[in-house]
Structure formats: C-alpha cells, structure tokens
C-alpha cells in the first residue's frame, strides 16, 4: 500500500473496499447493520460496536499514579485487525493509556486501574484485579519509543519470547524466527548475520527487530509507543509501511506525536487531552472534518 506519501485527505481512497472485506469476515454482524460501520464515542449502543469486530472494549477506564488521576473515564472500542492511533499533546496520557493494555504500570508501586478493558473473544478484563499481568503480556506485544533490543544476537532477540514460552526445539525456533523477521521486513537484511549482535544494526533495523521480537509470539494486540520518534525519515517511512501491512494479522494500537503519521497509518484515531478522550472516530473524519473544536485546533497545529 502506497500510503506513506499521500496527503491525509487521500488516505481514505481504499476504505470502501476494506469495509466490505471487514463485513465479509463476520456475516452475522454484517446483517444487523446495512450501512457502513461507524464508531462513535457513545458506544453504549452495543450493536454499533459489534459491527466493527471489536478486539478490545475500553470501558470507563480511570488510572491513578498514587492520588493523581492520569486517565479519566476513557471509553473506546479497539477495532480488530485495524490500526487505531492515539494522538494528543505531551502529557495528555496517551502513553499512560497504551501501557494499561499490557499492564506495564504494575511494575511501579502505587498505581491503580479502574474500569475494564475487555479482550475479545474470551472477555478477559486486561486490567481486572485478579488477572495476572504476565498472562496479559503473553498475549499483547509492545514496541517502545527507543529501540531496545537485548544485547544478544539478532536470532536470540527474536527467539526470546518463544524461549520464555518454553519452546526448545531448534528447528522450530529457527523457523519461527525467520517468519517473524520476514513479517517485520528484516529478513533480507538480517538472514546472513543472525548470530551478530543486535546492537550492530542501524536504529531503523533495531526497531524492526523489536517488531519481529514482538511478532514472534503472535500477539493479539501490538502496542506501539511512538515507535519512530527516535528514527530518521527513511527508517520512519519503512516502519509506517510495515505497520500498514501488519493490520491484516494483528490489531495495532499506536501512540504518536506525529499527526501526519497518525493520518497515514491509522484507520481509527482517538484524540486525548489531559487524560480525557476528546474525540474518537475514523481517521479520515478526524483529520478532515473533526466534530470538536479542540481536535481541530490540535490537528491544525494551534497547540501541542
């Protein structure tokens, strides 16, 4: 898909075809809505949510650092095998929100979640008090702002998650590592140097290695926390292209500072401001015709 260089207004060119494809995947749901699927922030109408094949339903989530309430009553559906972008000015809580999905906040004392993030199809509440964060992280991958490959070989980096899951067989490991590296568009560059240190790679390659590392364990949702903010424009374009291709196999949630990036890669976009959700809609709508004044001011660069 040649999305990387197109202007935001042209992004939606392929949309109708994709929607049809989406409806075909779930004929039962397609029956209930004849029109084009559309999400609004008011998701109390569950019928609308169903039409989207929701992978994770965020319902009334609050998050606290000690006494400080960093996220306020967030309710957003995360569409299955689509790219959802979280945008907003620094400190708006978008990264904090992202890190709720894989319970990274549990690593720090004094944090608390409220509400629910229900992962479909088995209705697991990711932030439920009795839910083991390890189990959550086994199902949800993450790519960080700064590429953070382990100081091991390229092969061992990708095999890391597989080994954690108890995979020992060498042939299977090699096979899965290759698959993941191909999935992250790194195989051609890395296949002859699998035993070299991952730290010998360039920044963009390292970030694709981190994507491969996450893909290897077949996550259901892949979280991206400003994945290109430490990269040059060419490496950024490659990562964006990669994210566009990933949407066929995995649900993507991406935090980005870069509005052009959000417009280029996302299907749905949530605009957040000081811990609150201001607007959530299809990306085309947000970037061409937002319904809230604050959203418009932000995307036209009046603040942030």
């Amino acid at each position, binding site marked *: 898909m040649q999305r990387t260089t197109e202007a935001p207004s042209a992004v939606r060119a392929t949309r109708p075809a994709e929607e049809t494809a989406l409806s075909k995947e779930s004929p039962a749901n397609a029956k209930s809505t004849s029109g084009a699927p559309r999400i609004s922030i008011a998701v109390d109408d569950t019928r609308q949510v169903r039409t989207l094949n929701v992978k994770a339903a965020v319902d009334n989530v609050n998050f606290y650092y000690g006494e400080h309430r960093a996220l306020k009553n967030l309710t957003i559906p995360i569409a299955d095998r689509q790219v959802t972008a979280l945008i907003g000015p620094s400190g708006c809580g978008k990264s904090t929100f992202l890190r709720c999905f894989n319970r990274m906040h549990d690593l720090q*004392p004094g944090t608390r979640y409220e509400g629910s993030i229900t992962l479909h199809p088995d209705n697991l509440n990711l932030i439920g008090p009795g839910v083991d964060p*390890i189990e959550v*992280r*086994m199902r949800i991958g993450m790519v*960080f702002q700064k590429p953070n*490959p382990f100081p*091991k070989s390229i092969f061992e980096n990708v095999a*890391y998650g597989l080994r*954690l899951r108890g995979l020992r067989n060498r042939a299977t490991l090699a096979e899965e590592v290759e698959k993941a590296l191909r999935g992250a568009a790194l195989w051609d560059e890395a296949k002859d140097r699998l035993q070299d240190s991952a730290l010998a790679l360039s920044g963009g390659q390292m970030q694709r290695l981190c994507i491969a590392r996450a893909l290897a*364990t077949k996550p259901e949702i892949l979280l991206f926390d400003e994945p290109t903010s430490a990269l040059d424009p060419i490496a950024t374009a490659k990562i964006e292209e990669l994210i566009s291709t990933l949407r066929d196999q995995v649900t993507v949630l991406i935090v980005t500072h870069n509005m052009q990036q959000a417009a280029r890669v996302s299907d749905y976009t949530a605009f957040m401001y000081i811990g609150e959700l201001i607007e959530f809609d299809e990306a085309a709508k947000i970037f061409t015709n937002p319904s809230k004044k604050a959203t418009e001011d932000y995307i036209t660069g009046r603040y942030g």
Partner: protein
Amino acid sequence: MRDRVVEILLLASGLVAVFTTLAIVGVLLFESGGFFEHVTLKEFFTDTMWTPLFADAHYGIMPLVAGTLTTTVVALVVAVPLGTTIAIYLSEFAPHNVRETVKPILELLGAVPTVVYGYFALTMVTPLLQYFMPELPGFNMLSAGLVIGLMIVPYISSVSEDAMRAVPRYMREGSYAMGATRLQTALRVVVPGAFSGLAAAFILGISRAVGETMVVAIAAGMQPNLTFDPREPAATITAYIVQVSLGDLAHGSIGYQSIFAAGLVLMAITLMFNVIGFGLTRKFREAY
C-alpha cells in the same frame, strides 16, 4: 594558569598510586633476587616442602600455593552464589526501603576487622563444623575459607548490584513486555547485561580471598601442607609472610628473603586472576 596547577596536582596524586605499585614490585624483585641466588627456580616450584626456618630447610612454594588456592576456592564457593543472589534480590526484587536498609548493613560487614572474623572462624565456625565432622582438626582450611567467603559477600553483592542497576530500565521493560517474570528478566537480560560488572565483582572477591591474612593465620593453622583437602590444616602464602614478619629473623637472611619470593608469587596469582577476569569479560559481555 589555575587550570594548569590543578591538572598538575591531579596528575601528581595519580602518579603516587603508580609509583607505589612500581616501588612494591621493585622491592619484591630486588629482595627475592637475593633469595633466588640460594634457591633454584626448579627447587622453588617442585619441592613439596616449605621449611625455610628449620635446620633441614626446604624451599618449595607449592604447599603455600595449595593452601592459598584451597581457602580461596572454599571462600568463592560461598561468596559467589550468595553474593550474586543477594545482588539479584536487592536490584530486581527488593522494595525501595528494604534495599536502602539492607545495603548499608551489608556494607558494614565489610568494615568489621578481619581479626574478628579470624576468631569467629576459630571459636564459632570450627566447633560448629566439628559437630557435623567430629574428626575435623581445630585448625583447618574449611572453616577459614567459609568465613573468608562470608567476609567477601558484601564486596561481591555491592559491586554486582551496582552493575545490575546500571542496566537501563528500557531493557527490563522490553523483557517484561514479552511476558517474562522478574526472575526470567533478571537471569536472561539483567545478569548478562551486567556481566562485565559482575566479573569485576568476582575478581575483587578473589583478590580479597587470595590476599586475606588474619583469618587464615588464626584459623587454618600455620603448618605448610601440600594438600587440596580443605579439612586439613595448612598455611597460606599470606599466613607465612605474617608469621615470618612477626619473628626475629635477621635482616638479609634467607628466611627473611623468602617472604619476598612468597610475596612475588602472591602478586602473580592475583595478577593471573585479573587477566582471566579481563578475558572472560571481553568474551561474554553483553554490552548495552
């Protein structure tokens, strides 16, 4: 101008350390030169007895080397696993306030005079060991080695913990995000990432154990004994040096010169461990 003065002063203080080291090596070489005029290198390294103070004098260094290596190995068997475990706990598991309480206490252990550890070995640990091993002699290398091990635990745990805490947070987050537990993250990411620091900690521990004097002088007995069995009494290089230094040997006599030859060997052993450690670090380190 003032910068220049400061630079010279700093350089001078650096040179003090360099010159001290060179002076020590110089004295060791010079004095042991006199020793090796009387004793051939062949005798020094192959004779199985070390009795320079007896009428029937033998000058084989191996019994002392064996004593030194045996107590060191016993000490490391205690200190490396214990020190590393403590470091992993403090760095990866302990809540902030526990770490801030435990670490100073541990470091305080390193400030206890070694003569106290020596009597601890002789009067507490040896009787305790004799309870389990009735035929254990009153002076033995096992007790001394165990206590030296305890003594160097704080060195190893403190330096190791610093090294592990220096592994960046994003490295751990990468591991946790993959679904790793704390222990998996500690063992698969943090320990390999901190390997050069851990190696430095082990080398420091080895150097302390090799050079330890009071504990072995008090608790291991003073008889040179060519054995690697820790249950036996033996003398180490350091114990011999302190024994001779306390005596009334004439300056320039061969017995007097023998302690410099012993000191030279001691220094060679320490140097050897440092070189091995340096090589290991370069081979296995996972730098970040």
